[in-house]
Each structure stands twice: as structure tokens, then as C-alpha cells.
């Protein structure tokens, strides 16, 4: 099948029944407009801040004297701020925005209780802001992704409770018996996150566990946040966007079921593999390594499902921004998992455990997979909220390529650098400083990739700002990456 015969928008709807359905859908979209745009706008603002911080952190790592005399600009404070801004400010808020829109659409009901969401977004922003200030002033707790001091954490939790209770309420108002795959993932994410966050906070700060178990709880939290919160939202979004854009049902529900439950079961047991041969009972680490290897089951099923759904429709990636970003993200999920398995094997972990390679792994998950899927969903959702289409196809293209090359370069640099650093470190006849020096060229390369990503994010923020101020195109035809007419295609919509 070639690209020309394929509808590029919604599947062609003919009769009057289709009109009603389309009308309903427009009503639902309109009802989600304010809350989702609040989440998206906040997320993009945090993204820009996080990007600037990322560049700063990256340069400081190979230029240690850069602005190091100011306490709140020291590397060890700016780095956690960058991570937390990206994790809680950008990724969580954008993910929640997309999840809210998807919930309303899939429950087939207009969004109710929007004030819950508006208040949730407000408190969430406040929590992230206070947390950032707290870290800069020297209140960081020192646990990865839980650095926010308790006064910020409690506000985040309140904000989250508002959003999650909204999600459960919405679910009660849903119409129709069938619960679509995306809803499994979203519901799971909405329920997993509070338990995870509460467990992490309680076991580390309220009733702290003893000694090394704090580190174990910390890594259990960080890894599960990656899989059960971001991963679940990302996979759920991909399960909606890919079939939607190409106008074709998901290839197999059975595969999706296997994929979902194996994902829930195995990915939640990962985390300790990142502490290979640390001071822990060996069974904990071994269990996590086994679980990491077993995550190949959901990877294979999800990947196969997406692939079979896309079969014959891949040429559409040439035109649809949503599809291009989403498929890139879905493919990155496979790469992310494979790298995760590779670096958790004891024989490899020995070399890469304490190196930049683990940074590459986090970026693969949070950026190449999750962020790219969320970008894709935003390209789909924002025009439906605002009633305008994206203004420039060329800017979307620039955004995509800068992001794709940026994250690709970053991953390669950090993986190669990590391996170099690790082999140097494992060779005791080399001075330790040589292992550090050997990774510096790769870190400079990483800074280069940071420039690409900065370009891509500023382009996206500019484009998003145009949309927000109503400067998008007035058209019924979505913005394509390449002119469809030039290919002689008939666009059905």
C-alpha cells in the first residue's frame, strides 16, 4: 500500500451518525481546553527552564570553575534542579495534560469538575517552584528524584491527589462498556504514582528505614517512577495516537493484554540492578536483573503490536508530525529497554555501573521515549483545543530533527564515554584521574547535543506560543511536514 491511498486525518466518516460522533468529540475537546492548556503551558515553561539548566550543568561538568563561587549555582545544586524540573515540571505536567485529554476522550464524556484540575495544576506548579528554591538554597535531600525538601513534597502530593481523584471520578462517568488499552495504562499510572510517591516519602523521610535500605528505596522509587509513571503514560499515549492517526485499529488486543500485565509485573521489580554488587543482599540485585531481562516480554509484545498496526503505513511518517514523533518514541522504548538489559548484566555493569552510561539510560527513557511521545501527542491535541492548526510545518520538522539528532548524539556520547570511563576505572594500573579525563571529550560532545536540544525546545516553545495566542492557521487541514499535494495525494478528512 502506498502513502497516497491513505487517509491522513480521522478515518473518513460518512453518514449522519458520523456527524453526531464528530460533534460530540468536538464538545469533549472543548471541555478539556482550559485544564489541558494550563498543564501544557506550565510544562513548556518548565521545559525551557530545564533546558537552560541542562546546558549550564553540562558545561559546568567539563568546566568546573564556571560560576562555582556562588552557592546556589554550584554544580551539585543545579544538577538536581535540572533533573527535578524536567521530571516534575516538564514530563509530569505534560504527561498529565495528555492523560487528562485522553481520559475525557476515551470515557466519551465531557470533562467534569475542571476546577479540581485547575487547582491541581496550580498546586503542582507551586510545589515544583518551592522545591527548586529549596534545592538551590541547600535543602536537597540527596536522593535521586526525591531531592525536593518535604515542604515541597507535601504540596506536590496534595496537587496530585486532586488530579488523581478527578481521574477516578471521570472513570465513573464513562460511557460504553469497553475499556480501551490506553485507559488501562492511564488508570494504572494514576493509581501507581501516589502509592509510589507516598511509599518513597514515608520510607525515606517520615519513618526512615535503616542504612543501605534508604538507597534501595531511593532506587526502587526512581526506577518505578520511570516505568510505572512515565512509561505507563507514554505507552498508553502511543497506543492511542498510532491507531488514531493512521485510522486503523490496534493489531491485537491479546498482545496488548499480555504486554500490559507483563509490563506491570516485571518493570515494577526493576531498580536494584542499578546497584549491582553494592552492599545489599545479593538476591535483591539478582531479582531486579531478572526482572529487567523479563521486561523484554512487554517490549517484544508492545513493539510487535505497534509494528503490525503500522505495517504498510510507515510512509505516513513523512507527513504526520504526531505519527513521526510517536513512532520515534515507541521505537526508542525498545532501545531504552535493550540498553537497560545490557547495562544491568553483571559482566557489563562491572564496567558501566558508576559511569555516565547510567545517565544515557535515564535520558533514553525520559527523553527519547517519553518526551518524544508527549511531543507527538501535543501536536495532535493542541490544535483540537484551540481550533487552529500549527502554523509552520518547517518548524515542526526542525523540532523533530533537532530533538532526534540531539538525543541520539547524547546517548551515543554518554554510552561510549561511560564505557571508556568504566574500562579505565576497572584498570587499577591506570590512575583514577585518567578515567575521569578520558570521559571529558565525550562530555563536551554531550554539551554539543545539548545545543541541538536547546534549539529544538525553543522552536517548539515559540510554535506553541503562537498557537496559544491564536496565531495558528485557520484551516480544516492539519499541518503536514511535507506538502501532500506535491505527491499527488488526495487528502481525505
Amino acid at each position, binding site marked *: 500500500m502506498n502513502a497516497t491511498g491513505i487517509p491522513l486525518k480521522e478515518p473518513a466518516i460518512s453518514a449522519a451518525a458520523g456527524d453526531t460522533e464528530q460533534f460530540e468529540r468536538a464538545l469533549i475537546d472543548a471541555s478539556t481546553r482550559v485544564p489541558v492548556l494550563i498543564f501544557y503551558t506550565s510544562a513548556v515553561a518548565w521545559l525551557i527552564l530545564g533546558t537552560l539548566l541542562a546546558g549550564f550543568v553540562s558545561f559546568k561538568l567539563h568546566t*568546573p570553575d564556571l560560576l562555582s563561587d556562588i552557592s546556589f549555582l554550584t554544580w551539585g545544586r543545579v544538577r538536581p534542579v535540572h533533573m527535578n524540573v524536567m521530571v516534575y515540571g516538564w514530563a509530569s505536567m505534560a504527561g498529565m495534560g495528555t492523560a487528562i485529554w485522553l481520559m475525557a476522550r476515551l470515557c466519551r464524556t465531557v470533562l467534569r469538575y475542571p476546577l479540581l484540575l485547575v487547582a491541581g495544576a496550580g498546586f503542582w506548579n507551586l510545589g515544583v517552584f518551592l522545591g527548586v528554591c529549596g534545592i538551590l538554597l541547600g535543602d536537597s535531600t*540527596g536522593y535521586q528524584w526525591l531531592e525536593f525538601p518535604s515542604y515541597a513534597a507535601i504540596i506536590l502530593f496534595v496537587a496530585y491527589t486532586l488530579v488523581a481523584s478527578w481521574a477516578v471520578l471521570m472513570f465513573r462517568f464513562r460511557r460504553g462498556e469497553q475499556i480501551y488499552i490506553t485507559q488501562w495504562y492511564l488508570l494504572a499510572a494514576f493509581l501507581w504514582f501516589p502509592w509510589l510517591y507516598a511509599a518513597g516519602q514515608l520510607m525515606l523521610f517520615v519513618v526512615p528505614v535503616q542504612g543501605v535500605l534508604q538507597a534501595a528505596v531511593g532506587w526502587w522509587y526512581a526506577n518505578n517512577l520511570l516505568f510505572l509513571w512515565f512509561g505507563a503514560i507514554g505507552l498508553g499515549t502511543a497506543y492511542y495516537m498510532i491507531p488514531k492517526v493512521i485510522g486503523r485499529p490496534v493489531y491485537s488486543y491479546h498482545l496488548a493484554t499480555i504486554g500490559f500485565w507483563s509490563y506491570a509485573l516485571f518493570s515494577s521489580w526493576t531498580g536494584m540492578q542499578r546497584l549491582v554488587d553494592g*552492599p545489599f*543482599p545479593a538476591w535483591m540485585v539478582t*531479582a531486579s536483573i531478572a526482572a529487567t531481562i523479563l521486561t523484554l516480554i512487554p517490549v517484544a509484545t508492545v513493539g510487535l503490536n505497534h509494528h503490525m498496526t503500522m505495517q504498510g503505513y510507515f510512509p505516513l511518517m513523512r507527513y504526520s508530525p504526531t505519527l513521526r514523533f510517536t513512532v520515534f518514541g515507541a521505537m526508542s522504548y525498545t532501545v531504552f529497554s535493550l540498553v537497560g538489559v545490557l547495562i544491568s548484566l553483571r559482566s557489563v555493569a562491572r564496567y558501566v555501573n558508576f559511569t555516565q552510561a547510567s545517565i544515557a539510560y535515564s535520558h533514553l527513557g525520559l527523553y527519547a521515549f517519553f518526551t518524544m511521545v508527549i511531543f507527538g501527542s501535543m501536536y495532535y491535541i493542541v490544535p483540537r483545543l484551540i481550533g487552529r492548526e500549527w502554523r509552520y510545518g518547517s518548524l515542526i520538522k526542525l523540532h523533530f530533527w533537532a530533538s532526534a539528532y540531539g538525543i541520539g548524539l547524547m546517548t551515543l556520547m554518554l554510552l561510549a564515554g561511560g564505557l571508556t570511563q568504566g574500562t579505565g576505572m*576497572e584498570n587499577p594500573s591506570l590512575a583514577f584521574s585518567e578515567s575521569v579525563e578520558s570521559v571529558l571529550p565525550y562530555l563536551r560532545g554531550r554539551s554539543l547535543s545539548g545545543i541541538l536540544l536547546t534549539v529544538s525546545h525553543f522552536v517548539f516553545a515559540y510554535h506553541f506560543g503562537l498557537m496559544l495566542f491564536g496565531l495558528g492557521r485557520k484551516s480544516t487541514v492539519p499541518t503536514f511536514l511535507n506538502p501532500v499535494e506535491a505527491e499527488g495525494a488526495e487528502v481525505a478528512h
Partner: protein
Amino acid sequence: MKGLAPLFLGIFGTFAFSWVGLTVIPNWQIGHLNPQSDEEGTDIYPMPQSGMVTRGARVYAANGCNYCHSQQVRAEYSGADIERKWGDRRSAPRDYIFERPALLGKMRMGQDLANIGARAPKEEESPSPAGGPSSAPQAAAASPGTVASAKAASPPQATSPSPPTAPATSPGAIASKPPTSPGPAGPPPSKSPAAAAAGGTSPAAAASPPSAGPPWPEQTAGLPPMYSAAWHHVHLYSPRSINLDSNMPSYRFLYQTRRISDARSSDALQLTGSDAPPEGWEIVPTYDAKCLVAYMMALNQSHPLKDVRSPGASAASSPATSPSPAPGGQPAK
């Protein structure tokens, strides 16, 4: 999928499985360890830490030291940590029972610090502040011809010639090369700026710590003995005055520059060269800096643990070492 109940049950079930498996059961297994002691109830290890050390741990966490420095020594079969002299034995859960937060770390852009306190020179052996007359004899010992003997006396501290295969690229790159192949054939030893300023090198064999330090960084003349509290202060204030290749940011915001009122404070940093304050001024650590250094000096896992076999040398010094691991939470295989 139809029906909400199985979905909800499954979502909660999988998560509960993971939560119980990876946090609750480990907590039941190793979450309530006590310090170990010998039969008479003496020789207790580990001991609770002082208030300054506890506060120092928070300063360490607040400034993100743990993003570059780990605090865990892996067993000899799973890494080169012990060969790098980062510890005599692997770390075990019992080492950390009083640590809060427990900052094990995941990155080694800097050295492992699990035993940084153990590497400090013994109090009574500390030589007088550097640059003193005591450094003169050692300076002679460090000339290329006698390096081998100097190395035998105190391997890591000796300012050794660079290996012929990897000649020093910068005139100040004293500390970047290990003393792997000392010999008369090597190029003349390069000196750090401080060493050059002091006009000699000072291996300071007297300051050699009991567990020999790593090959990096090396003792620099004109500075306090390596890994002493005073050395840590200078290192935090100006890492590249000790080691030109260091990639550590300086933490000058933890220090105060103030005018000397009547006499120079005993806390004042012993700085040389461009870092030295102007005449009549001195640089003193803030309370946070003192706590941070107190914390680092307290990082010490050199005490043998019954849970852990100590490889090689330390077996002789610790009769308590037992090949059979103690019940309850032994990490050893």
C-alpha cells in the same frame, strides 16, 4: 478488557508485589541491624556519629557531592575498588546503620569516599604545616635515581616520574600519572604549581596513612598532609591547587575571607600562590565546611566486619574475621 474489578485488582496487586518484595522484605531482613561487638561487649562498630558529622552529611547531600562520589566498595571479584585502595574489604549493610541519609552514590566522576576518613594521617604522626624544614630531606629522596626506594617506603605518596609511555603533557600535571613504572629512564618528575612554588617535593613518608592511599591525588609539597582535615579544606577551596587535573568544582562559598584581627586563626587555610589571600587577610572555613570535613573524616569502613571476609592483608590484623557469614542480611555470596 471488560470489567473494572480485575483491572483494579491487577494494578494494585502488581504494585503491592513489588513494594513488598523490594522494600518490605528487605526491611525485615536487614532493616534492624545492630552494631557488632566482641564477646566482652567492647570494640563496638559502627558507632553513632556526633552532631557535626550528622550535619556534615546534610551539607554533603545539599551540595550534591553524591552525584560524583560514591560511598560503596565493591567486592574484589566485581570491580577494581579494593585494588584501587578505596577500602580493605567490600562494604556491607552494617557499615551504614547510622547513616542518614545513606549516600551510596551511583557515579564516580570523583573517587569513592567510603574510606576517605581511614586514609587520613594519624594524629600524632601529622607533621608540622607543610613547607617546613622537614620536607628538605624527602625532596632529595624523590630524585629520579632513588625513586624506587621512595616508592617502597610509601608508594602512593611518592612524587614519581611519569611512565615513559605516557609522558606528562602539562608542566603541572604532577598527579595525573600513576607510579607504575618508576625508573631512572623516566623523564624528570613534573611538579605541581604548589610544589614548584615551594621549591621541592615532599613525599612526607611520616604522614603515610595506615591503609595506603590511592595513586591519585598525590601529596603535594607546601600543603598539609594528604587527607588530613586541613588538606580537605584546601582541596575544597581550591581543588586545582592540589591537582591540576582535578575536575571538581571549588566550594569557596563554604569559606570566609576576613581580616586578621590580632593573630592568624588556627583554622585559616594554608594556601599558596594565586589562591592565597592578600596580606593581612585570612580564609577560614564556615561552620558548614567544618561539618562537611568532619563528616568526611568520619567515613571509615576499615573496621573488620564478621559479615564480610576481608581479602588478603587485613586477615592478619583481624582475628575476628570469619569465613562463615553471620546470619541475617549478609551480602556476601
